[in-house]
C-alpha cells in the first residue's frame, strides 16, 4: 500500500461535548460528519490535563514522567531527551511537514520555534490576530473594552476583521491547495485555539444556544469527600475582568448560577465556531480531491470542566478534564473510497442544520491514550510504527510509550 497524506487536527481544551459523543445540546455537525466516516474512540484520555505537557506528550508519544515536562518552562530536547516527534518522523520519511496554529505549545516548551526545523519543513504559521486574544477586545455593558471571559464579538469590528481560527483555516486551505497537484506526501497539522478561554468568538454562534435551554452541570458542587489536593481553583478564569467583578471567594467559589449558565453557553458556542472551521478545512480537502488519499485525525489536548465538581478548567484528573475526542478517518478503511466525485465532507452549516447527523457503528469503547496517536497515525499512513520504549527510555530517540491501535479497527472489541 502507498503512503497516505496526514491531516492532523487538534483543538484546544475540547472535551467530548460533541454530537458524536452523545451530547444532545451541542451543534457540531462537521465533526460529527467526520466521525461518521471515521473510527471513533469513545474513551480516549490525555496524559496530563494542561496544554504544554499534554501536547509534548502526544507529539513525542512519551508520558510526562519521560518528557519531564509538567509545566510550560522547559524544552524536552535539552531537559529530558532528544525524542523524535511525530511530524519529525514523517519528515524523516520524505513527507513535507507543515504546522498551522497551535500544535506544539508555543514558547519555551517548543524552543520558541514550534520545534522547527526538527519537526517542520517550513516555519510554523501562527495567525496574526492571536496577538489580540488576551487583550481588552470585548465590549462590556458599559460600552468599554474589557479582557472578559465571555467575549462574543462582531468579527467585522475586530482587528483585521478576523479571528485566529479563521485565519488558521485560511492558511491551512492555502497550504492544501499548494499540495493538491504534488505527488510528495504531506503531514499538515492544524491546531485550533478554541474552545480555550477567553470565549472570543463570533457573536452569532451564541444564537445556537438560547440561554433558557442551557442547564447547570449535573454536579455543580465540590464533592464532600474530594481531597483538597485534587481540587483546582481555576485561577485563569478568575483573572478575567468579568469574573473578577463577581467577587468569587477563593478557592472554592462558587460562581453565581446565572453566570455559570452563560459560561456553558459560550463554551458550546465556541465548540460550534471551531466545528465550522473544521468543516471549512475538510470541505477544502474534499474539493481538492485529497480526501481519497489523506488520513484525517481529530483530537484535543485535553478536556475542560464545565462546572462539574465546582470547577471551571482543566488542571485535574477528573474525566471531564482528561477525556478527549479521538477519531481517525482512513480512506478505504473507515469509509469507502469515493471515486464518483461525490462529496465526502461537504460543509454543514450549523445554523441551517435541524437534526443531529452522527451515524456510525465504528466505535471503540475500550480505553486508549493520546500517546497512542503517534504509532497509530504512522501505521495508518503507511509507515512503520515506532517500536515500544523500554522501561527507561531517556536515551532512546525514537520509540513510543503508547500502542498502535490500528489493528483493532477491523476487529470486534474484547472485554
Amino acid at each position: 500500500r502507498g503512503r497516505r497524506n496526514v491531516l492532523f487536527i487538534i483543538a484546544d481544551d475540547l472535551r467530548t461535548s460533541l454530537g458524536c459523543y452523545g451530547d444532545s445540546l451541542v451543534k457540531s455537525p462537521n465533526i460529527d460528519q467526520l466521525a461518521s466516516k471515521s473510527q471513533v474512540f469513545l474513551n480516549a484520555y490525555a496524559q496530563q490535563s494542561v496544554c504544554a505537557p499534554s501536547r509534548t506528550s502526544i507529539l513525542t508519544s512519551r508520558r510526562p514522567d519521560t518528557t519531564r515536562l509538567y509545566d510550560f518552562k522547559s524544552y524536552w530536547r535539552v531537559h529530558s531527551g532528544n525524542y523524535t516527534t511525530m511530524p519529525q518522523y514523517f519528515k524523516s520519511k520524505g513527507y513535507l511537514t507543515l504546522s498551522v496554529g497551535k500544535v506544539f505549545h508555543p514558547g519555551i516548551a517548543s524552543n520558541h520555534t514550534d520545534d522547527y526545523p526538527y519537526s517542520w519543513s517550513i516555519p510554523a504559521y501562527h495567525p496574526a490576530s492571536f496577538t489580540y486574544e488576551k487583550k481588552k477586545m470585548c465590549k462590556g455593558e458599559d460600552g468599554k473594552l474589557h479582557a472578559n471571559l465571555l467575549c462574543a464579538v462582531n468579527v467585522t469590528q475586530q482587528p483585521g476583521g478576523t479571528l485566529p481560527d479563521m485565519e488558521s483555516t485560511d492558511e491551512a486551505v492555502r497550504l492544501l491547495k499548494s499540495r493538491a497537484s504534488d505527488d510528495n506526501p504531506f503531514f499538515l497539522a492544524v491546531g485550533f485555539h478554541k474552545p480555550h478561554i477567553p470565549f472570543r468568538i463570533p457573536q452569532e454562534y451564541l444564537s445556537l444556544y438560547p440561554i433558557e435551554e442551557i442547564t447547570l452541570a449535573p454536579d455543580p458542587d465540590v464533592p464532600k469527600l474530594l481531597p483538597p489536593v485534587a481540587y483546582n481553583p481555576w485561577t485563569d478564569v478568575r483573572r478575567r475582568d468579568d469574573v473578577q467583578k463577581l467577587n468569587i471567594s477563593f478557592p472554592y467559589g462558587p460562581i453565581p448560577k446565572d453566570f455559570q449558565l452563560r459560561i456553558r453557553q459560550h463554551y458550546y458556542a465556541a465548540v460550534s465556531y471551531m466545528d465550522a472551521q473544521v468543516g471549512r478545512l475538510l470541505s477544502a480537502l474534499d474539493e481538492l480531491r485529497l480526501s481519497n488519499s489523506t488520513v484525517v485525525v481529530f483530537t484535543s489536548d485535553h478536556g475542560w470542566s464545565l462546572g462539574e465538581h465546582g470547577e471551571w478548567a482543566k488542571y485535574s484528573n477528573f474525566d471531564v478534564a482528561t477525556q478527549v475526542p479521538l477519531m481517525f478517518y482512513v480512506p478505504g478503511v473507515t469509509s469507502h473510497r469515493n471515486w464518483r466525485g461525490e462529496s465526502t465532507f461537504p460543509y454543514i452549516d450549523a445554523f441551517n442544520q435541524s437534526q443531529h447527523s452522527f451515524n456510525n457503528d465504528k466505535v471503540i469503547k475500550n480505553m486508549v491514550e493520546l500517546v497512542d496517536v503517534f504509532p497509530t497515525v504512522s501505521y495508518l499512513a503507511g509507515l512503520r510504527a515506532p517500536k515500544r520504549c523500554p522501561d527507561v527510555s531517556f536515551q532512546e530517540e525514537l520509540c513510543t510509550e503508547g500502542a498502535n491501535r490500528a489493528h483493532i479497527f477491523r476487529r470486534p472489541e474484547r472485554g
Partner: protein
Amino acid sequence: ENGEAVSFSQYPRPANTPQENSDLPDLKDIKIMGYSLRTWDYRYTLWLGFNPNTFQVNVSDVHAGELYMLASDPGQDNNVYSDFDHSVMMTKMT
C-alpha cells in the same frame, strides 16, 4: 492484548490544599503528583510525594487517594477510597 484496557494520567500540585499556583505549579514547586489509573469500571488516583529535583515519586508518601466506581457514580462525585483495601490497587498502580 488480552489484558485489561487502562489509561493513565497525572497531575502535579504544589501543596495539599488549593493555593494560587495549584493549577499550574512551576517544576521547582511541585511537591505532590496525582497518578490516575482508569478502567471501564473505576478511576483510582493516588496523590504521592514528588521530588522535583530528582523527578522521583515516593510511593510510601500517600497524601490522598480517590476511587470512583463508575457504574454507580459516572460523574465521579462519591469518593469511596477510604472504604477499600488498597493493597491490590497499589500494586496495580505501581
